[in-house]
């Protein structure tokens, strides 16, 4: 590379040419548009995510409540209509919830029977009919016949297989042989099943299928496994079962204790874990900013802020006062604040003339304010985002029927917090520098020392608190001041 090349390269490398103003305007527009697009996507996905979370939580709790409700309804039905009235009328027109139609697989011939011949076994894991379990247990206790157990166990196997709704070679139980089925007592019915099971144990399944008919054959079958005497869990009644005859409580076949029967099985307990998702709009107009930005009275200058808050928490309920929670919080807000700043004549914000941070005292004592640097107000707009981890406790302080009041005490630790400066505009404050109608409250002590009959030496500490009357000025704020003066009083 010769001299010519070097001179040429050096000269042209650092040249400058004034850029047309429209270039930045266009860039700014494009950036703003891009931001808008991004924020639309952000909110769209944010809202969708929140909806999914909230929907999931609602579905979760709704399922829990429905299950519980189903149990309650069943219990109510049994208690009110069958037991307490001593008229065990089972309305089988209503489909039993969670019912699983099963068949007796002891025949090992699942497909051999026509549907109209089949007596389907419907089993319900409902605890509602457990009222009858007691009697079953009683029966089982006295009836130690193993074949009955086998019968029950085989039914149970079917349930395990979840092979529902397959009409299979049915086993019909001739309840007439053991009990008066026309009485329609469900317990008698169970009794009959157990007894029948006992009788049928060694018979050919196909033969037995032609046997047991309960009157008009409406009654189908019941019962869950009975691996032990305490294991009877299910009892089931098929459609068209209508046992309307009142129960003869004194009947030896009906050795049920009504109190035992009316004993409502415990509710299916919901998990004590809970999830809470919240989304909200945040707005506040007053805040104390970091002293890095402003100091003194003006650190309390108000600024506007608005934004959104998203929160997801999971907790465990020990009792109403102790529900520890753990969650995440996402907060995004736009803050607008007007600062006063040193602004140099290049139009760039700098720390000071030497690029160093100045302390307040240095500013007060130098001529920066009146010479090269001009004091201006800067209106700044920030976007503040934070993701935080939240731990705390939720307390239920009041519960009036369905309405409750919880008090949450939480500690939040920022995992990531970001303040982004979006825009800064210079505000001309020259119109605000002259103020009037400021008021002050002064409280002073006057220590004096008599020198002679004409002269007194004074020490005068005074405390001043200033309040603004004219609120229009940007700079004037409330402030506290302590002045200690020394003086002399002359009596003329």
């Amino acid at each position, binding site marked *: 590379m010769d001299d*010519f*090349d070097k*001179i*040429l*390269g050096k*000269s*042209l*490398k*650092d*040249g*400058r*040419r*004034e*850029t*047309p103003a429209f*270039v*930045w305007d*266009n*860039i*700014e527009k*494009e*950036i703003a548009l891009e931001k808008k697009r991004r924020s639309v996507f952000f909110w769209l996905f944010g809202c969708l995510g929140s909806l999914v979370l909230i929907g999931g939580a609602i579905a979760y709790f709704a399922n829990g409540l429905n299950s519980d409700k189903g149990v309650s309804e069943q219990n109510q039905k049994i208690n009110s209509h069958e037991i307490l009235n001593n008229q065990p009328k089972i309305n089988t027109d209503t489909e039993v919830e969670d019912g699983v139609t099963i068949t007796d697989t002891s025949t090992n011939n699942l497909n051999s029977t026509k549907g109209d011949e089949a007596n389907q076994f419907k089993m319900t894991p409902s605890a509602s009919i457990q009222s009858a379990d007691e009697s079953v247990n009683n029966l089982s206790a006295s009836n130690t016949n193993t074949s009955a157990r086998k019968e029950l166990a085989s039914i149970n196997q079917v349930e395990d297989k979840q092979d529902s709704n397959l009409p299979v070679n049915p086993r019909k139980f001739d309840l007439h042989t053991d009990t008066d089925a026309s009485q329609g007592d469900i317990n008698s019915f169970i009794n009959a099943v157990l007894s029948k099971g006992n009788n049928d144990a060694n018979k050919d399944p196909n033969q037995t299928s032609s046997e047991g008919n309960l009157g008009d054959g409406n009654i189908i079958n019941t019962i869950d496994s009975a691996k032990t005497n305490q294991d009877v869990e299910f009892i089931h009644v098929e459609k068209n079962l209508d046992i309307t005859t009142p129960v003869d409580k004194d009947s030896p076949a009906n050795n049920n204790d009504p109190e035992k029967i009316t004993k409502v099985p415990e509710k299916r307990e919901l998990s004590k874990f809970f999830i809470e998702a919240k989304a909200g709009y945040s707005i506040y107009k007053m805040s104390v900013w*970091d002293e*890095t*930005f*402003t*100091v*003194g*009275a*003006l650190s309390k200058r108000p600024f506007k802020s608005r934004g959104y808050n998203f929160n997801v928490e999971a907790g465990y309920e020990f009792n109403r006062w102790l529900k520890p929670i753990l969650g995440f919080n996402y907060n995004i807000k736009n803050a607008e604040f007007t*600062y*006063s*700043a*040193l602004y140099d004549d290049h*139009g*760039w*914000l700098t720390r*000071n003339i030497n*690029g160093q941070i*100045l302390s*307040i005292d240095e*500013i*007060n*004592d*130098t*001529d920066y*304010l009146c010479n090269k640097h001009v*004091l201006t107000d*800067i209106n700044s707009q920030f976007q503040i985002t934070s993701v935080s981890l939240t731990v705390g406790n939720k307390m239920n302080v009041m519960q009036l029927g369905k309405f409750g009041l919880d008090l949450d005490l939480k500690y939040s630790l920022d995992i990531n917090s*970001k303040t*982004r*400066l*979006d*825009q*800064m505009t210079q505000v001309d404050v020259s119109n605000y*520098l002259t103020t009037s109608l400021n008021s002050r409250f002064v409280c002073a002590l006057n220590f004096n020392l008599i020198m002679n009959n004409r002269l007194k030496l004074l020490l005068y500490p005074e405390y001043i608190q200033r309040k603004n009357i004219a609120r229009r000025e940007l*700079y*004037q704020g409330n*402030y506290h*001041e302590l002045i200690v003066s020394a003086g002399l009083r002359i009596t003329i």
Partner: protein
Amino acid sequence: MKHRASSTNPLSVLYLNRLLITLNQAISECIKAANSAAFKHIYQHYSDKMFYVCLRYIRNESDAADVLQDAFIQVYHKIETVKDPASFEGWLRRLIVNKCLDFLRAKGKKQEILSEKDVAIEGHTDVELDQGDPEVLREILFSAIQKLPEGYRIIVNFALVEEYSHKEIADMLGIKESTSRSQLVRARAQLKKILLTQQDQKIKESYYG
């Protein structure tokens, strides 16, 4: 003159620290996250310099401004990829140059680079550059470069101003290294010729008034 602030003058207690940012801080801020205020700072610092770069490649001022605009929008989106704020200027310059090249390619100007019909080397031409006033010299050289055909202007800018190697030039333009070398020789000769013509004209103007 000293402005002694008293406690009754709240002006004295106003101080801004975090917002008083330097260029490096602005670049760092922008690298961390797109920040339009800091980006404006960067733009205002570099725009004139980069506009000059654009004008060295693209003669038309309006086209150069468009290219600059596109380039800075790209900078805003890609600034996060800058690993070290200290290397930002080099990165920016490279991006601007590529944008200019794209623009010229789009206009089909690149073809000129590959044609060797423009100038025949007419012996060894030498030119004396007056290095008195750097601004004047810069203006003379800039105007001479502006008069070069697009292809030669690119090769002169690449080789002599940006100081790319012939291999880099060959890669960027999709030509052979030997072509790059020969084009540079021709471009340099052409440039000197233009400068001589300019000098002659200047002498004539000063002589004849």
